[in-house]
């Protein structure tokens, strides 16, 4: 029985369909990366470099070379990601390696400096590297947490459906607003004409849209009608009001979706350009060292 249970357990493990880039292959790259970091730290402590640790000792050169090659390899993910394959060198394996080896660069790079930092290009390269890594850590965090939220928010709607939903509401609003007076129609028109995807980066990432025309239209209409007696019958404004409320709910969902998607992407807008700044300053760092040898 017991052996059966074990067998079935391992069997289940093997066929586990989805483990993310973090857990890939039983945290293989986390283990490798931890090993690298440990070796670096221990050797840093125990290897006696005279007069003291810095990037110019043999140990410093070794760490520097490893670090520079690692940076170039990590950058290659940008090329590699455009070709999805499976297997042990699958894109997922690459991503997993990218993350954990990238994190090990904190240790390799920092030890390479020998903690000698200053206002110079060598430290600039280090700072760029740290910016890249820290933005990457944000990326990991977002990738690990946001997809769940995205999925919850979408409620099984696709992006196309969200857009169609908005279009449909707009059409209905347009239709229902036809009998309205010019003033009321203008309010509704503002809602229709506002770009639900506009508003710039800060609105997108914060999810706050203080000038949302739909909300303004609804608020204005309600304020106006607050003390009006119910007319009974078919007041077109009732329908418009209901539609505006629906539209606002949809907009809220879309905006949450946009905000989450923005967070999924925004770190890359730092990560990628800073990687290139890093490669540039890394080149300057290496060339300058040999230039003023």
């Amino acid at each position, binding site marked *: 029985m017991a052996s059966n249970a074990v067998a079935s357990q391992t069997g289940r493990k093997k066929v586990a369909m989805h483990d993310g880039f973090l857990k890939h292959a039983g945290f293989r790259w986390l283990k490798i990366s931890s090993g690298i970091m440990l070796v670096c730290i221990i050797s840093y402590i125990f*290897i006696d470099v*005279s*007069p*003291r640790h*810095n990037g*110019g*000792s*043999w140990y410093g*050169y070794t760490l520097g070379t490893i670090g520079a090659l690692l940076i170039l390899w990590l950058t290659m993910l940008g090329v590699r990601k455009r070709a999805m394959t499976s297997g042990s060198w699958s894109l997922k394996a690459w991503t997993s390696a990218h993350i954990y080896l990238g994190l090990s660069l904190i240790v390799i790079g920092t030890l390479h400096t020998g903690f*000698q930092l*200053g206002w*110079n*290009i*060598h430290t600039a390269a280090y700072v*760029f590297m740290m910016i890249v890594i820290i933005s990457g850590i944000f990326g990991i965090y977002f990738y690990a947490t946001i997809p769940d939220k995205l999925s919850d928010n979408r409620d099984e709607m696709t*992006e*196309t459906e969200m*857009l169609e939903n*908005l279009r449909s509401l*707009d*059409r209905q*609003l*347009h*239709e229902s*607003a036809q009998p*309205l*007076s*010019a003033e009321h*129609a203008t309010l509704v028109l503002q809602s*229709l*004409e506002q*770009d*639900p*995807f506009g508003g*710039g*980066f800060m609105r*997108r990432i914060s999810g706050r849209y203080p000038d949302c025309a739909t909300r303004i239209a609804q608020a204005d209409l309600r304020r106006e009608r607050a003390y009006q007696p119910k007319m009974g019958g078919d007041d077109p404004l009732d329908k418009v009001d209901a539609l505006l409320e629906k539209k606002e709910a949809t907009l809220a969902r879309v905006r949450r*979706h946009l905000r989450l*998607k*923005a967070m999924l992407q*925004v770190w*890359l*807008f730092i990560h*990628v*350009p800073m*990687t*290139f*700044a890093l*490669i*540039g*300053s890394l*080149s*300057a760092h290496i*060339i*300058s*060292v*040999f*230039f*003023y*040898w």
Partner: protein
Amino acid sequence: MTFIVRQIATTADGREIVRSNPFDSDQIGIGRSTENAIHLPDLAVNPDHATISKREDGHIVVESTSGQNFTLDGKQRVSVTIDPADGAELGFGGHVIVVGEEEGQILFTVKRVEALSDSAEDRSESTLYTLEGLLPGKRMSAWGFVALVLAAFLIWPIYTWATYRGVEERPDQFHADTMWSSGALSQAHHSLEGDCQACHVDAFVTVTDKTCLTCHEDDAHDHAKPNRLLTARGGPEGFEKIGAAFASAFNKPPGRCVECHTEHEGAGAMEPTAQKFCADCHEGMDGRLTDTKLENASDFGLEHPQFRPAVLQKPGGKNPPRKRISLDEKPTEYNGLKFPHDMHLSKTGGVAQMGRRLSAKYDFGPSLVCKDCHTPDPKGVRFEPVDMQEDCSMCHSLAFDEIGGTIRTLRHGEPDMVRADLRAYYRSTRPTRPINLGGMKRRRPGGNNDVRVASDYARAVQFRPSRANLAISEVFSRGGACFDCHGVTPPTARGRVDFGIKPVTQTDRYMHKGWFSHEAHNDEDCTSCHTADTSKDARDLLLPGIKTCRECHGGEFQATSDVPSTCAMCHDYHADEGAPWLMKEQQKDKRKKPDKKIAQR
């Protein structure tokens, strides 16, 4: 029929549906309200926006009734007159009305041109939910950063370098290549901070000794011949090979000044030479530099040869011959003097007694001690040579005559003068006159005695000057003042008295390759290192061996020893006659520190 209104609607799949309605009236309305002939389901349009009326001359007048504008060929208008034959385009909200004529009738073609709402417009869904357009593109900013970084951090500094090639001294301003500096320069080189090219002359060529020697022409002599140095150091081992591979791959020859004198390690004084640097060569050196006379040394506490002082071979002359002999061989040294230390330091006996008797005058203690004869030099490092007048003559008097209370002494160091003085003394003085030659004589029976005394005295007076030779001989011979301390050369011929004094050489420093300061060891008794109190012979070399030093001094890493000592405590790479650099630095530090204050209770 006056007007024909043709409405064109577009279905979802892009198909156009055209509906034409004739209106037999001179005036029709335009508005959102369905009562209007031209009904525009457009929220931007007023329920009753404008009217169109036909004039007699066939022109039509379009006039806003709501006060809201409309456009004529894109221009805002409230009222216009149009010749239908010329045609025109009117704009109401998201709709356009094209005015034309068809078979004598005025035709209005109505079409929605703007989307009903913003969301209804065509959108590329692949980018709609992305940040595209909201932030500068990744590709753009990536290349931008690369260009910026390379320009600022690489091209600009290289330009600076190229600009100031061969310039003696750079102007005092910001220079871009200082951004390459990996750290502040040491205090001594601080003035070069802005002038990278003072040391880094050529591109991709390492700092050479030549640039160092531009300034350090006098104070940076070689530790040993460069090729022997390299041999002694041996090839790189283990992981060192990595560094060596980099060095040789990038044209960085070994054995340059900067290999030890590492710069850009931060402001402040340069670090003292690490013991490792010494041990790099001196540990197991005989294996690499097979013909060396030096013994291996890696650590004072663990591996350091016995001291080999430069022992005087023969006293006299300006540069008397010396030979380095290990203290293990118990070398002796004859410096031309006789001096039993034990007798002088004894707490009992004649010397001590004499000292006590003279203690009031010379501040001696109950017995003689080292300092009664040995005087430290002004820096307290070593001792002044012992001076006869200063240090010996308190007891070892050279007095030979007294005239009116003044003691006459023989001249020390001038044997000829000693002889002359003694001769003069005997020539100018008479022997003591027997009292029975005077008038107050006490008579004894018989006259012969008187005659004998008188003739004896006369003979003595006559031979008095020749007595000098005897006195001279006595002074230079056993029991005489000179002989007590000095080696004496005998006269050149029998009967002559041209005695000579053998030359004396006092050694003030035995170990020229190492440094020892007596002042630093003030807390110790002299005898804890120098066994003078048992030395019977001046030939005894009273230098302590390494064992004695090791009682307190351990190696650099022997933390348990009283004084963990690096090589640099006694040795200097670019050694001169003075103290090692490390000790000088320590002295500097001591001078800087404020006096210790006793804590208030």
